[in-house]
């Protein structure tokens, strides 16, 4: 995502930058939606037209939803990490908006990954859930996403919640490898390497292409939803600023209230 970098968070640039971003989003969204829908349709059609797997039967098609969800679940965290760095290092006004908008999406894709994994696991492993390394670490990731969302929501002031959440996101990011490693250790200790790992490295090309197209479709879906979520977040903040300004000018004399109500409507 290339957003024009503006170093200073104050003054006219801050005003212009989100506004420019909103205008850009407005232009881009129809194209993005079109691309997303075409790719999704194509990937679904390809996915359903592949022959059944000789081992897994038709359940192999769950992979086409499961694997891209997992990719996006991890990708969303990457977006949050870069947003957090953007907040702390460059103080970019849109960085926190980007990070914050990515969190619910990441949580949703993680949930989708967990749910499809579970549905896939039922016929494959004979149970809805196993304490497999991947499933377990994704469960932890899911909890981390929810915790971060709660943190963002519970700090009232955006500037402050941005910095707090950025610290939490980065500490979480440093932890993820440790969690991953410990969970790996935990599962191998407890049940041995008997878990059937679906897919495997040698994926036949007729499965690979639908998967890649679906991955691309999910990527576009993510970008589209992310831009929309960012747009909503910016608008929410503009309303907030306008409301606070109204309160302030009311406090300092009252004669400015007519001006601030006109600002609220913009």
């Amino acid at each position, binding site marked *: 995502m290339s957003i024009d970098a503006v170093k200073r968070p104050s003054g006219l640039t801050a005003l212009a930058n989100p506004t420019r971003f909103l205008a850009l989003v407005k232009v881009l969204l129809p194209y993005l939606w079109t691309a997303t829908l075409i790719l999704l349709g194509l990937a679904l059609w390809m996915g359903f037209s592949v022959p059944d797997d000789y081992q897994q039967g038709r359940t192999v098609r769950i992979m086409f939803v499961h694997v891209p969800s997992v990719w996006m679940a991890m990708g969303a965290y990457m977006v949050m990490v870069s947003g957090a760095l953007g907040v702390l290092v460059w103080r970019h006004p849109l960085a926190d908006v980007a990070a914050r908008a990515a969190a619910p999406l990441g949580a949703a894709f993680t949930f989708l990954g967990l749910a499809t994994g579970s549905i896939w696991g039922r016929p494959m492993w004979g149970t809805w859930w196993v304490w497999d390394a991947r499933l377990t670490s994704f469960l932890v990731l899911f*909890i*981390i996403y929810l915790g*971060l969302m709660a943190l963002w929501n519970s*700090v009232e002031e955006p500037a402050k919640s941005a910095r*707090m959440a950025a610290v*939490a996101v980065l500490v*979480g990011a440093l*932890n993820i490898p440790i969690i991953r490693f*410990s969970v790996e*250790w935990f599962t191998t200790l407890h049940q041995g390497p008997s878990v059937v790992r679906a897919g495997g490295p040698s994926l036949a090309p007729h499965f690979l292409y639908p998967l890649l197209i679906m991955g691309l479709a999910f990527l576009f879906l993510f970008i589209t939803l992310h831009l929309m979520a960012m747009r909503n977040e910016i608008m929410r903040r503009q309303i907030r600023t306008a409301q606070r300004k109204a309160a302030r000018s009311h406090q300092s004399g009252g004669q400015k209230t007519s001006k601030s109500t006109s600002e609220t409507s913009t």
Partner: protein
Amino acid sequence: MRALLMRDMRLALRSGGSAAVALLFFLAVVVAMPFAVGPNAQLLATIGGATLWIGALLAGLLGLERLFQIDREDGSLDQMILSPVPLPAQVFIKSLAHWLVTGLPLTLTVPIFGIFLGMNAATVGASMATLFVGTPAISFIGAVGAAVTVSLPRGGLLLSVLVLPLCIPVLIFGVGAVRAAVTEPDPFLPPFLLVSAISLFFSVLGPFAAAFALRLGLD
């Protein structure tokens, strides 16, 4: 620095302080366990290490909420930030004080709880050793959570949600080491050293991240 350590410990040990409550809470969790799983001595002994670790984790989280919150409310945090002593060092000291009044006493009372749970000497020893090296990690990771949620009115719940997932590795290796000490073929040392490594890692990362968050959270 010693003044800060002494003051924090004194506050925790005074009546109404967090140390006694944490210990009581630990007792309550450990005692509740047999009621949940049944009085089967064999089973209780097997899950003894796990019970102690869960108890220690929850008891550790209990007092963390107030780690910086009281200082913020009464204005001490402002003074700490103005102090010439680097803030990460102060956070380290405060986390250390938290550990000295929660993690350490819990570790030392393990032999008593071991009797309740029907654990043998080897398990008790292993539990004490792993809790000793593992509980500091809870205090140090928790300090970050406490710093991030310092200005929230009900930060305690959020703190637990944020900190618990990050404590999972400590729990896995801690309980794993206790288990390994009992079941013969598994080596005790690797998970034990991993717990120690995590504690050391967070004793560095935790204070810096927490101090950073405290500074950013000023208003």
